[in-house]
């Protein structure tokens, strides 16, 4: 069994507000990978896709349906899947393996370090439902440490697509990348930021999405939409925000940070991740290493296991929705102006 067509059937008897796994996953960033990979597989036979009993959650089922001969569902054995991907990568295949970000970066951390990153194999790790997108499913299903862990592994490339357009661009443009890549994906219901695949992504080159003079906000992936919306809101209040989509965490675009410092003198990072080792740390390292003179603030999760709750409520609680981000930016800009 690779693909179960029962999931294609829409149950008309369901109440309008009901949902199941098939209904839940629309066209968001993680959900698009199955389709994109199936399309790439049409052109070349070295693409294989593995998952670990979550192919409907990540829509890699779309690939399984199109190319069952190049797809394996390993069941609930993530560590085995990672090592098997390393093995098949030595035979000329490019494995894309998808499961929840927590089960890749935490459960399979050692397999990734020793059998994927150290041998520098072209394994593509698709960690979806990252951050706290799993909400009330709890800490076991949250991944607020994944960037910190994987960033410290030599040879690892890390990309945080924000929406399906950027996810597609990132996947397509890195197929022939020689080493491992971790794609930090959302839960498949991410709000759109980009419109054109051709303009959404260049590896290691941050996108300066909005020009501004008062403060630069560096973010990516899960929190980018909130920052973009916050910036629009603040513009009306007379605060001009320079928005940088640092979609590639590794290699980090140091030059984009330097430019931002030169332009605004104030840098704020926003992340749905621990502030220890995430994008805030990355930016702080560039600032410290280069003796850049600026005001600096990190907004993210401060050394705690977050509350459980519906994702939207959590974003509200942790000031990671547009309102909350706007509040934090406002405080940073006005606070520092008053000093």
């Amino acid at each position, binding site marked *: 069994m690779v693909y179960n067509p029962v999931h294609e059937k829409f149950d008309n008897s369901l109440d309008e507000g009901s949902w199941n796994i098939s209904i839940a996953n629309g066209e968001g960033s993680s959900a698009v990978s199955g389709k994109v990979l199936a399309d790439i597989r049409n052109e070349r036979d070295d693409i294989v896709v593995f998952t670990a009993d979550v192919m409907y959650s990540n829509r890699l089922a779309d690939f399984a349906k199109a190319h069952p001969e190049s797809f394996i569902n390993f069941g609930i*054995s993530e*560590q085995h899947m990672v090592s098997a991907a390393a*093995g098949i990568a*030595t035979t000329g*295949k490019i494995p894309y393996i998808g499961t929840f970000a927590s089960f890749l970066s935490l459960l399979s951390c050692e*397999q990734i370090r020793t*059998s994927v990153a150290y041998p520098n194999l072209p394994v593509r790790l698709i960690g979806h439902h990252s951050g706290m997108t799993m909400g009330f499913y709890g800490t076991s299903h949250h991944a607020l440490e994944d960037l910190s862990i994987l960033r410290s592994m030599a040879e690892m490339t890390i990309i945080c697509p924000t929406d399906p357009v950027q996810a597609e661009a990132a996947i397509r443009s890195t197929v022939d990348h020689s080493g491992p890549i971790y794609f930090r994906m959302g839960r498949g219901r991410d709000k759109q930021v980009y419109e054109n695949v051709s303009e959404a992504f260049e590896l290691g080159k941050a996108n300066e999405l909005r020009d501004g003079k008062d403060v630069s906000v560096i973010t990516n992936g899960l929190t980018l939409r909130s920052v973009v919306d916050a910036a629009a809101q603040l513009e009306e209040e007379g605060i001009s925000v320079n928005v940088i989509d640092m979609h590639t965490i590794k290699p980090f675009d140091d030059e984009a940070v330097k430019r931002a410092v030169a332009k605004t003198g104030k840098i704020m990072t926003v992340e749905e991740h621990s502030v220890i080792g995430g994008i805030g740390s990355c930016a702080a390292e560039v600032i410290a290493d280069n003796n850049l003179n600026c005001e600096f603030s990190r907004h993210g999760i401060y050394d705690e296991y977050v509350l459980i709750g519906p994702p939207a409520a959590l974003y509200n609680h942790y000031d990671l929705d547009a309102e909350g981000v706007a509040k934090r930016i406002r405080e940073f800009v006005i606070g520092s102006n008053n000093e």
Partner: protein
Amino acid sequence: MSEIVNNQKLVRDLEEKAKFIRLETVRLIDIAKSGHYTSVFSCAELFSVLYYHVMSVDPSNPDWEDRDRFVLSKGHAAVGLYPVLADHGFFPKEWLDSYTRVGSAFGDHPDMRKIPGIDFSSGSLGQGLSVSAGMAIGGKMSNKDYKVYCMLGDGELNEGQIWEAILSAANLQLNNLVAIVDRNQMSLDGFTEDIMPVNPIDQKFEAFGWETCHVDGHNLTDLVELFDKISSTKREKPLVIIADTLKGKGVEGMELNNDWHLGYLAEKDRKKVEEEIHRGLQSRT
């Protein structure tokens, strides 16, 4: 008749290679002043039969895509594998002299990126069978005929990931995968059956859907016969060979001796051990 004579010569040659593996292990560990003698001594005959009789490899083209693969999941026996690869000409023998020295390609555990002929890096126990399964899947997806041989330690069977791999290899009918358990009876702290028992290994593999067989892992006549039979038999399932061996085999003072998982032989003892290895396994039987 001539076939028997040929086999006798083959077995004698393979026994000499096993001796060579043990002697080189002693020589290289003398450079490091610390190493896994006994973990190599239990699988010296297995290395010998695999690399000098069974596997199809091309030292002039280590990445030959049709080659048989060998994954040394018990990576701490690499010091016995390096001399075999050098002997085959994967790299100049002089390279071995750098064993464990600063910047060397050759450490206690093998590195596929630095050493021609090493099919996968290992060292962290429990991952090699999954890696081998991945290679076997790759072979099937690419319609290749190669086989993947994976050598596991018996203590390594304590690792949970091994059983994920066993489950999955059976389900995927990886009949191009051969696992070899070096059943040398011991792990670091002592006998496996005292620490975390793994018996009955064969019944466990069988229950998971594998073919199983036993062999005396130090008897090269039996090993040649078994591997010849394996290569001429078509299977539907993955196969595990449980090789009954002794940790430290070939050096009496080290055999099943808990003190010798890691160690070092200073000059006088090294010379004695080398003489004992030269006399061969038959000298005491």
